């Protein structure tokens, strides 16, 4: 009997791989191993509607549990894989069970970076945000009037800040860089979201370094800044980035560098092993990148199913992202790495605008705030390899649809 394709990590990439594998009518059996007790679910709503209490847990699941059984996919949840034995083509779980694989798919994702215990990172009331269980632990603490301190002004922190304000908490955000979203967006986008959060009553501190979290009998009660200032807090959310889960790959001798290195077909340095999603690092436009997004996880999972079915395909998908904060829908297309200038395109409605990123004359990416036309037509423009001038883009009377189709 042929060994199954074993998928380690039950997230969006795994679900997408399985869906495509099934849709292609591939016969080879699948076995999905997940460390959490849940089948694959959507993570983006966790820091948005799920934390807000507006989405039932059942609706997070990408497919109902029964679906996997119907497709003859074997599920091993609550199971952690500790070792890959490449010689024997087996993975070994933390309880010592060996599972044979014909092909192995690593969809191990990433984990939230935490604050060191020496500065209070493991006190009660300090949370990170990555899983259903994380939200289920923290959401009872999200009560009106409480003081929420968020360490890190990235998307996770800002989305949680918006939820906190909607639920009536007092919210403070600390960002050590000189502006929020510095790692991922241009100053104009940071300015937009700073104004948005300040208008909603968030106390936002940039260029501000945390010295340590303060403890009251083991429970967090505030933070001391490097300046010596003290901020009171009832709960703390740490949103300071994520770390790829590539340890088992590294221990097995697979090439890794900020994630598991993969080829344009998502193959690792072992021809029997593939990797997809947050855990892997790939080359795009001659740059080594690692993306944390649904689009990337889903498209890479899909691609591997096609590759294993014998299709001659390579990974060229255009990245896209989104974020919801208050009434603002941010939609992003492309990657802005290496941009040299940005162009602001005013929107039609108040609070709507888009930021277009250029490297010289080349259009790289767009951040669209309540501006779906810039996102949708901008995506078509980038896909078509067109590069409208800064003047065209900045002029609100320019018809983007015509630019995209023309």
């Amino acid at each position, binding site marked *: 009997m042929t060994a199954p394709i074993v998928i380690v990590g039950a997230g969006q990439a795994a679900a997408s791989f399985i*869906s495509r594998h*099934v*849709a292609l009518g591939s016969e080879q059996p699948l076995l999905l191993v997940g460390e959490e007790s849940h089948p694959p679910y*959507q993570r*983006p*709503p966790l820091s948005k509607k799920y934390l807000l209490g507006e989405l039932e847990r059942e*609706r997070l699941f*990408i*497919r*109902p549990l029964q*679906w996997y059984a*119907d*497709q003859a996919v074997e599920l091993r949840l609550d199971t952690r894989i500790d070792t890959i034995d490449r010689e024997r083509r087996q993975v070994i779980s933390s309880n010592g069970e060996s599972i044979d694989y014909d092909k192995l798919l690593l969809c191990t994702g990433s984990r939230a970076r935490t604050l060191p215990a020496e500065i209070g990172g493991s006190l009660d009331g300090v949370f990170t945000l990555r899983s259903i269980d994380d939200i289920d632990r923290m959401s009872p603490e999200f009560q009106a009037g409480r003081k929420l301190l968020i360490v890190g002004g990235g998307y996770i922190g800002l989305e949680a800040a918006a939820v906190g304000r909607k639920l009536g908490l007092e919210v403070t955000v600390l960002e050590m860089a000189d502006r929020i979203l510095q790692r991922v967006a241009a100053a104009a986008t940071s300015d937009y979201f700073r104004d948005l959060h300040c208008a909603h009553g968030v106390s936002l501190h940039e260029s501000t370094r945390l010295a340590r979290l303060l403890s009251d009998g083991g429970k967090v009660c505030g933070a001391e800044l490097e300046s010596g200032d003290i901020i009171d807090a009832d709960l703390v959310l740490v949103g300071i980035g994520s770390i790829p889960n590539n340890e088992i790959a590294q221990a097995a001798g697979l090439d890794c560098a900020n994630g598991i290195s993969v080829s344009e077909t998502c193959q690792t340095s072992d021809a029997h092993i593939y990797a997809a999603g947050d855990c892997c690092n790939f080359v795009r436009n001659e740059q080594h990148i690692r993306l944390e997004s*649904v*689009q990337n996880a*889903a498209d890479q999972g899909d691609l591997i199913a096609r590759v294993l079915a014998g299709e001659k395909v390579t990974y060229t998908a255009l990245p*896209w992202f*989104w974020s*919801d904060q208050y009434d603002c*829908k941010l*939609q992003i297309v492309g990657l802005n790495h290496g941009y040299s200038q940005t162009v602001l395109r005013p929107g039609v409605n108040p609070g709507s605008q888009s930021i277009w990123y250029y490297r010289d004359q080349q259009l790289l990416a767009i951040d669209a705030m309540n501006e*779906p*036309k810039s*996102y*949708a*037509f901008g*995506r*078509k423009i980038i896909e078509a390899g067109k590069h409208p001038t800064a003047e065209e883009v900045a002029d609100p009377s320019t018809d983007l*649809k015509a630019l995209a189709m023309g």
Partner: protein
Amino acid sequence: MANITWKMEDGSEISADVKDGLNLMEAATANNVPHIEGECGGCLSCATCHVFVAPEWLAKTGEIDDIEDTMLEMTDVEREDNSRLSCQIIASAELDGLVLHVPEPE
């Protein structure tokens, strides 16, 4: 509750009873309807849940708002007058018997 039917280009059909309040992208993925992906989870960012609504049902499925109207420009199979993103159609008793045609990308 509404009984929804998805018709594929090859003539096959899938029917399912869908609970009130669920959107029809969720209902499609739960029932293994091919070509409906719903990558963005229904937040109008991916246009991968495109369907054609049987014309006699179009009025009952509700209005298309500006964002959906824009995102319909991005579908793999070109939009037509009866195109909708199925994540924006919410199941209710009103839609009992609804028929959706599922476009198949090249």
